[in-house]
């Protein structure tokens, strides 16, 4: 199992937090929020792929449907 996803998510989270505070200090509130939104979307993609794999696996193991 690829454990790297956890580190990727943590890295993107920290990066987004830093980016948010930097952009905010420059007075660009809009772009700070957009950067946060982009980070959340990228991480959500990864999490959803992981979850879809998990659900498929569970469905095949327990013969659900």
């Amino acid at each position, binding site marked *: *199992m*690829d*454990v790297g*996803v*956890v580190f990727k*998510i*943590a890295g*993107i*989270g*920290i990066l*987004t*937090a830093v980016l*948010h*505070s930097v952009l905010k200090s420059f007075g660009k509130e809009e772009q700070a929020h957009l950067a*946060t939104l982009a*980070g*959340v979307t990228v*991480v*959500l993609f*990864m*999490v959803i792929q*992981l*979850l879809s*794999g*998990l*659900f498929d*696996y*569970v*469905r095949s*193991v*327990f*013969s*659900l449907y």
Partner: protein
Amino acid sequence: MEIMQIVGLGLITTIFYIVLKEQKGVFALQLTIAFAAIVFIMMMGKIQVILQVFEDLALKANINMFYLTTIFKIIGIAYIAEFGSQICRDAGTESIAGKIEFAAKIIIMVLAIPIIVAILETIIRLIP
């Protein structure tokens, strides 16, 4: 030993969770979801082996496979509902976790009804 991997990953995830929770709660939650999914997928292979053993035993004992697959389905639904409700509870949405558990209970009940009916019919046949 796989448990060492999981404990290590869990501790690292907890540290990242604490770091991220301060600034961005969304990422902390998604970190939790990813960790839960990874642990679940790691354990799924072992669960598959256990279920295979049970299936072989049932075949040897000539048990109707319908009952066994129903039980497997119930176990699967319970696991996946627990997974979802615990994540919701982590995020602080107690009510959504409760709804997931409620739905799981109802679905398990629906799956269990044929077994209950079979047991009742057997009992009725035994009693003259």
